[in-house]
């Protein structure tokens, strides 16, 4: 059954971070607080990556999601001071969001949890895959012709285009 050791405790702590943070994001009346809860939640995800022996992804999670995306969100919230004391917790579209969320959860449960947990109970303690990938493997996979070089290049082109677009938009009309 469940073995209580450091990893299990860390798993539960990070789970509390993620779920509690997520709950805080949607229930908080202050958008800045929401953004900070979001950081907590994302930090918990980074902790999960560490537990899964994927330190590279953990660092990237912190760098991209906390260092860039969360900062961007806080930045935009800070510029809208009136958004900090909201009376209304739900917006007008809650009836639309509800079925979407339920559907998404059902999809995840069927697609991710069921194959692991299975109809015939928990599938042992064996890992789903025995490939241990290092950061170097990830780097090679991104430029290997047989693996992910096409998505990698497409993403690069997309980002370059977005950057050029930003520069063009920000330029003065000379």
């Amino acid at each position, binding site marked *: 059954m469940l073995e209580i050791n450091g990893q299990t405790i860390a798993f539960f702590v990070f789970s509390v971070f993620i779920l509690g943070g997520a709950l805080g994001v949607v229930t908080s009346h202050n958008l800045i607080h929401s953004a900070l809860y979001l950081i907590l939640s994302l930090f918990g995800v980074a902790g999960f990556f560490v537990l899964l022996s994927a330190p590279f992804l953990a660092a990237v999670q912190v760098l991209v999601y*906390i260092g860039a995306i969360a*900062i961007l969100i806080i930045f935009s919230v800070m510029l809208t001071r009136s958004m900090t004391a909201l009376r209304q917790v739900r917006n007008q579209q809650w009836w639309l969001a509800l079925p979407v969320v339920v559907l998404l959860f059902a999809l995840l449960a069927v697609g991710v949890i069921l194959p692991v947990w299975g109809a015939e109970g928990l599938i042992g303690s064996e890992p789903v895959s025995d490939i241990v990938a290092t950061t*170097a493997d990830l780097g090679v996979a991104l430029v290997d012709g047989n693996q992910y070089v096409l998505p990698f290049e497409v993403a690069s082109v997309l980002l370059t285009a977005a950057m050029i677009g930003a520069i063009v938009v920000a330029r003065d009309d000379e």
Partner: protein
Amino acid sequence: METQCIDIVNTLAACLVAGGADPNLANFLSILMGVVLVATLPLVTVILLIWVERKVAARIQDRIGPNRVGPYGLLQPVADALKMLTKEDITPAGADRFIYNLAPIIAFAMIILMWAVIPFSPVHVGADLSIGILYFIALGSIGTVKVMVGGWSSNNKYALLGAFRTIALLLSYEVPLILALLVPVLMTGTMSLQDITFAQGGMWFIVTAPLAALIFLIANQAETGRAPFDLIEAESELIAGYNIEYSGFKFGMFMAGEFLHVFTVAVLFSVLFLGGWWGPGVEQAPALGFIYLGAKTALVYLALLWVRNTLPRFRVDQVMALNWKVMVPGAIAVLLAQALALRVIDALGLTPVRGGFVESLPQTVILLGVNLVLVFLFLNQVRRQGRRQRAADLAVVGETRPVVSVPAGD
């Protein structure tokens, strides 16, 4: 356990086991001691750093500096800390209390956490993460959170303005910083700080990648908010920036965090470009690494103080122009040139395998040459731009006839 007990400093756990202790307990004790040491060292250092900072600044400005409390004023930081503790702890009206108190903690914790991955000697390293450099960058990016949160929660428009400015500065200079950090990664094929240090056994990276080292240093001077990039403080314009409302010990934590950040950057620079703990006899007595790393760090730290105290502050638009028009393209050019040169060296079969000094000489010469060519191209570009600017200025002078006449030519 494969490590043998040689002496108590380098192989504590193995020695405890040899002395009859339980292996698990011995391991735990050795790790616990490491954690306590790594967490305490920066805290103790920062007290001294404040004295060093004030003394060096005073000498550069032809003053004496603190000299009343204790011998050479050495106890001045203690007096300062006591003063700070006794100040009233103010929380401004309308401040977001929880976040307001959280910001200084984030500020200080983020710096302390950086020390976890620093290799002090061949065997002493807190955690030899395979992603050491990325870990450092990730923690640096959390630094923006502290500024944002501290500036916003103070409920003060100067603090908010200061925070905006600081964030713009921090985010912009992160780009050349990361690009410069990629060069040592490129040369070693690893992001572990310990492996990068081992790779510098033949030649320090400041010789083989001097431009990357320079960009790293400049970008970090901006990241730490020191002059000439001290827009974060800018007393004359913003009063004190994002931490204006903080008083007492909370302000002390911001200040200590800043001092420690500069020192941490000096340590990292030593590890990445000055060979870290490498020095004569370090392979026989690993504990010597502490001394070598400390000496190199002290030199870099003094250089940073020197820069801080001699250069005037940039204007905010100049800071941005320097970053986006010089540092970022420069860093990309350095990265590409270095990558290309390494590829050529590899094709010629000149890559050092064992990492000796003589063996790495050909590679060093080629890389140094590439860097010098880049410097030449850069200076040439600056010269041409200066000439064009002068010509444009002279044309304007010719039209408007100002009171002060400008001599033709230069």
